[in-house]
């Protein structure tokens, strides 16, 4: 019998707060982080809304404990801020104390900083401090710097499966624990806004010029966001042995692929359905025991139809409360799965369901509508968190209340 996997610490930074407490406060106050970029040089800055972390890269460097940015990318700094909160929250003063895994996720790595100096790097005539960013473009740079600073080194790797990246990182870390390869895995993702991704999604014509409206008939695309989030996963035996505070159990997971189209899900939500169904089966819970689904809900035309159909297929006439929190945080791509995993744990811990902002009109394809109110003192025992992405990569996670 494989060991159960518990969450013993969480840390995050997003457009609605620089730590978990601030995120929770914004969720309760229904304050969205969407607005316009202050830090990206793009012709789209006044047109395409984004959910940006409200700190300059220099400020982030200070928060992370550095005198200057000194070759650390925004991606890395966001990650460092979030991971140090997670370790502190888990009561881990020295991460080197036992062999642990750092499973990180990113989609464009250090692009946020390298895109600014890319053509200088290509110019043999140019020399300067920009050269310290030369090896930060890939996804491994941020992970390794986080590993080096925290001292986690037994397993160090990075996953990139588009929008499901950090959900897969959590899954992979949990499996390393179940296989007995480590007793602790710190998993999550970090993503900084870049001109590259803004233009990329804009070239796909799926960025809404208004604030995104998940599951709304009038929805017209996503808004990008940035942030980082990490969860400390521990085996039951380690958590008990050290008397860790257990926040929730990661009780089920499943990864599937749509095999339908490079950028679009199947219209009936086959992959989403399979992912949710199998994750729930693994958790040993029934559909009736799920009180909340934190949906992927990007507000693109395709995703919400496909995901909504999958919910209707899985839950029939009894679809539980569901909401997309992307109108708060924007779509943070590789960080989304971990940010929303923390919201799922908060939902259980606070007995609260977060509202789906900007919703007004039911979609014609669906019979269901998202929860638009903040529900407090709501008995949340089990939450499904969905992350679906490009390349057909789907991941569903099940978080369950820890009963002691």
């Amino acid at each position, binding site marked *: 019998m494989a060991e159960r996997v518990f969450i013993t610490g969480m840390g995050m930074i997003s457009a609605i707060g620089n730590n978990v407490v601030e995120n929770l406060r914004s969720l309760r106050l229904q304050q969205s982080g969407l607005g316009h970029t202050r830090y990206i040089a793009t012709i789209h800055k006044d047109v395409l809304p984004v959910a940006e972390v409200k700190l300059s890269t220099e400020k982030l460097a200070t928060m992370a404990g550095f005198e200057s940015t000194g070759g650390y990318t925004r991606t890395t700094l966001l990650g460092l801020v979030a991971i140090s909160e997670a370790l502190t929250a888990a009561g881990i003063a020295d991460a080197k104390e036992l062999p642990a895994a750092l499973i990180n996720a990113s989609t464009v790595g250090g692009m946020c900083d390298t895109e600014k100096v890319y053509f200088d790097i290509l110019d043999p005539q140019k020399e300067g401090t920009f050269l310290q960013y030369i090896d930060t473009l890939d996804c491994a740079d941020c992970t390794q710097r986080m590993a080096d600073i925290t001292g986690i080194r037994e397993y160090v790797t990075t996953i990139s499966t*588009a929008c499901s990246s950090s959900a897969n990182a959590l899954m992979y870390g949990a499996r390393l624990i179940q296989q007995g390869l480590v007793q602790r895995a710190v998993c999550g993702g970090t993503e900084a806004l870049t001109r590259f991704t803004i233009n990329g999604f804009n070239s796909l014509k799926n960025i809404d010029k208004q604030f995104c409206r998940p599951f709304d008939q009038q929805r017209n695309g996503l808004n990008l966001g940035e942030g980082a989030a990490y969860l400390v996963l521990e085996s039951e035996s380690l958590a008990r042995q050290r008397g860790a505070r257990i926040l929730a159990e990661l009780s089920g997971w499943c990864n599937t692929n749509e095999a339908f189209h490079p950028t679009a899900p199947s219209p009936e939500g086959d992959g989403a359905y399979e992912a949710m169904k199998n994750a729930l089966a693994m958790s040993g819970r029934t559909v009736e025991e799920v009180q909340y689904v934190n949906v992927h809900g990007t507000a693109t035309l395709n995703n919400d139809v496909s995901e909504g159909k999958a919910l209707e297929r899985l839950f029939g006439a009894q679809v539980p409360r569901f909401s997309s929190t992307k109108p708060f945080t924007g779509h943070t791509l590789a960080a989304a799965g971990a940010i929303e995993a923390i919201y799922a744990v908060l939902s259980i811990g606070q007995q609260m369901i977060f509202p789906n902002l900007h919703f007004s009109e039911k979609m014609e394809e669906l019979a269901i509508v998202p929860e638009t109110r903040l529900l407090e003192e709501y008995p949340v025992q089990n939450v499904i968190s969905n992350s679906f992405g490009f*390349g057909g990569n789907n991941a569903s996670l099940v978080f369950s209340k820890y009963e002691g």
Partner: protein
Amino acid sequence: MKGKVYIRGCAAISPQESFSGSFVPQPPTLADDNILRAKEPDYKAFIAPNNLRRMSRMLKMGLTAALQCLQNAGITVPDAIITGTGKGSLQDTERFLHDIRQYAEAALNPTPFIQSTYNSVNGLIALQQQCTRYNNTFVHRGFSFEHAVLDGLMLLREGNAANVLAGGFDEITKEHFYIKSRIGYWKTALTQPADLFSSNTPGALAGEGAVFFVLGAAPAAVSLEGIKMMYKPSQESLGQALETFLSQHQLTPADIDLLITGQSGDSNHDHWYQFVQQKYFPDTIATPFKHLCGEYDTAGAFALWMAVQRMQEEERLKHVLIYNQFYGEQHTLMLLGR
């Protein structure tokens, strides 16, 4: 570890004649730069014209190697597709960066953006083979392919798969070669692969390739006994990890019939191999491989492919150990048996 894992099929597109016909290791002759380029097959035999027209080089190379590997293993739909890539489709990433500048962010082609995402090869394989199950992509330099292998081994142990397609792919472009040359990745003077190990100069020769494997529980000629990764180890901790790894498999260094090492001719980093060979394998037959495929993030996949070829040819090889590291940071041991 419960149950053995076998290598049921493999395929490699590399700077060698590795894709079709029999493999005769031959260091290529370089004309004007320190790049070992992959010998690409005719993709039309594998990919329908309507799909081929949009694909960039890395996607074609990755997809084709994966398809040939499945064919060699006699499998149509694997239970999982797991890949590793350090850089993904560099051509697409570069093109999108250049397009953003050239067209001042207006009217950009979406295709290079879509294909620049690291999981695009995985998605294509899944799409072409209609594989709707587990799918994952690791993007971590010298641990990219290696974690794809570990993930595959775990899936098999968990009983969640009978056959896993695991592979690694990377390409080199002129532009990326230049970028990395600015931080000393490559040798500065033109160096022939045949002279690589006597060059005694800093830097490596750049390489590329796409190599895939089907890992499964059903017996085959070669088994993958285990994998061990070490991040930025000290010489001492590397030695300890090596000893522990072998003893976990009830082996000592003397039991290893062939040692495959990732020497790249880089005077900054080859001391790792000298240490391991001198301390543990002074009398073991050892062979390098980077004079055949060059240095790149997922070169470990080529080493594994070469090990399988050698074991298929030479019955006497019972245990083969691969030791590879990437610029001193990611170190990996892979053990093969029968």
